């Protein structure tokens, strides 16, 4: 079990980084509580795998420290940090049986055979591998192999944290759902710290209690899935989370209030005085409503998204999307829109106004 802290972490793959772009990870400070389920969410190349490998010890950071329960483990190699990692595609020892695969980490550490047997059977039952224990690992399907990788991570009692690097990438879509739920269930039974790296928001939001959103080597926001949805700290988080993503419109500021082509828009936050730079208004499609008065807009498209429909409109020269329920009739042509003030925010240079730089 461990509380994991990252202090002043920076990493570059180059020997002599000069420009900001040379840094794969820009300055980071993070703290993860013991036993929590966390997700690292971000697009490809944002640095999440780099971060994961630094935590597990497969990579040495250029600057900064990794602490487990306050102890500096930065100089330690992976086998001394007592972590487990599940990789993007299944890593199994092909020539061994499933049983031997699960037993491998324990046998390498000299655990007595009787204990090995009990432990392996326990884990096999948890990961639904009991029926295949005697089979050769190479004969299993991709999801079976990933379960073996997972099992190898769980089989050691002294594991501090389990790290997942996009583990569902090679799994068939219809099995992904099963494995996702299995992982969540496992976390309830085995309360170890679990850190899950992915670019898929559904995986992150279902699995984790708290999500860390990253982009271009920086942490953009961390919080519960709700917080990220309702109060994105950055337009990036707004775009990335939610389907469709948040609508972002350029606006002007008048006395701290947002103004959209002459229309005053009520927002949850106010812009500080004397502000200049890129000013935008962010509102999620879920929080735009049709009413009798409000901003004029022309409906340009309507698409079906299952339980609701997505309407696309042209409002004051900007394209907006919002949700309409199936049975709500919508007239084509002119409509009026209102934005829910509690869920409309002003953004300055991408960041939530009044909270710049605070992740």
């Amino acid at each position, binding site marked *: 079990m461990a509380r994991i802290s990252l202090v002043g972490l920076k990493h570059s793959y180059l020997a002599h980084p000069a420009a900001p772009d040379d840094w794969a990870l820009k300055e980071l400070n993070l703290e993860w509580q013991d036993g929590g389920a966390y997700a690292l969410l971000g697009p490809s190349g944002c640095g999440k795998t780099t971060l994961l490998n630094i935590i597990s010890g497969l990579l040495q950071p250029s600057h900064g420290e990794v602490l487990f329960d306050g102890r500096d483990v930065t100089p330690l*190699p992976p*086998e001394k940090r007592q972590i487990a990692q599940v*990789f993007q595609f299944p*890593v199994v020892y092909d*020539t*061994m049986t499933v049983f031997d695969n699960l037993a491998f*980490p324990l046998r390498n*550490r000299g655990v007595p055979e009787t204990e090995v047997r009990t432990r392996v059977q326990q884990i096999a039952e948890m990961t639904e591998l009991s029926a295949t224990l005697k089979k050769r690992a190479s004969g299993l399907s991709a999801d079976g192999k990933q379960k073996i990788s997972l099992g*190898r991570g769980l089989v050691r009692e002294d594991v501090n944290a389990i790290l997942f690097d996009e583990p569902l990438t090679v799994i068939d879509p219809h099995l992904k759902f099963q494995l996702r739920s299995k992982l969540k269930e496992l976390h309830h039974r085995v309360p170890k710290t679990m850190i899950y790296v992915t670019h898929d928001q559904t995986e992150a939001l279902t699995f984790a209690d708290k999500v860390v959103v990253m982009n271009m080597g920086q942490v953009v926001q961390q919080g519960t899935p709700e917080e990220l949805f309702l109060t994105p700290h950055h337009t990036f988080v707004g775009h990335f989370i939610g389907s469709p993503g948040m609508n972002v419109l350029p606006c002007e500021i008048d006395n701290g209030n947002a103004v959209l082509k002459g229309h005053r828009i009520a927002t949850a936050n106010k812009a500080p005085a004397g502000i200049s730079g890129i000013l935008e208004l962010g509102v999620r499609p879920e929080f735009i409503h049709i009413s009798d008065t409000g901003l004029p807009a022309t409906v340009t498209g309507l698409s079906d998204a299952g339980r609701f429909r997505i309407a696309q409109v042209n409002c004051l020269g900007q394209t907006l999307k919002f949700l309409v329920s199936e049975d709500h009739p919508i007239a084509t042509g002119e409509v009026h829109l209102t934005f829910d003030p509690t869920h409309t925010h002003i953004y300055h240079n991408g960041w939530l106004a009044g909270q710049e730089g605070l992740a």
Partner: protein
Amino acid sequence: MNKAVNQKAWFFVLPVLVLVAFNAIVPLMTVVNYSVQETFGNNQFFWSGLTWFTDVLRSERFHASLTRQMIFTGSILLIEVPLGVLIALAMPRKGIWVSICLVLMAMPLLIPWNVVGAMWNIFALPNIGLMGKVLNDLGFDYNYTRQVGDAWFTLILMDVWHWTSLVVLLAYAGLVSIPDAYYQAAKIDGASRWAVLRFIQLPKMKRVLTIAILLRFMDSFNIYTEPVVLTGGGPGNSTTLLSIDLVKIALGQFDLGPAAAMSLIYFLVILLLSWIFYAVMTRNEEW
């Protein structure tokens, strides 16, 4: 991939078929022809059935060269395969030295075979060659032109020099294709260096090693030029391997019947052994 059934595909294959058939079937027909006939000159041939075959199979000479060939092939396989794998394992995986290493190692493979033989012929001469002179100076009584043991030693050393790089290149290709994640997982699982070799590297190299072993087996069984230029088959006939003997009989003595019979037996032996090797190495495997 899903292939469509299309008999017109035969047209695509026709050029290859014609070329290879011309080169393979026509000569082999000639060989079969000669192998069952006897001649006393003047282009008159008599049917002799399986006489030549039984003669060859019973002849001391054939047994001797076959034995020598087996010893040779066995020895080089036992040396070149482990050595090649060892070198591939010890090579850097990334970096500038990789290219340089591979290019230098590939050089022996592209030298005409007679030059390889000639090179070693000169290199190993007792008083003039670098290796010959050094060995004699060190106290060994070394003369490959006169002593059988020395001849075999030089022959095998030459083949190791010539072909180990092929094993290295193939093994290296197999090693390099192993994704990093396997090594990372092994680290986390606390696996020893030996365990990594046994459970990750060797299994993943199985396919390339099969190709390497098959190629080396076939080519060494068929070897002709290098030993001929190095020792001429001597001293005496101590290094006369199968191909050398066959060419002596066919092109030297123009003994058409025995040569033809021996050719067919030779071809069948190598087909059979190759098939056995292949079956043994790929059993239980999803190919």
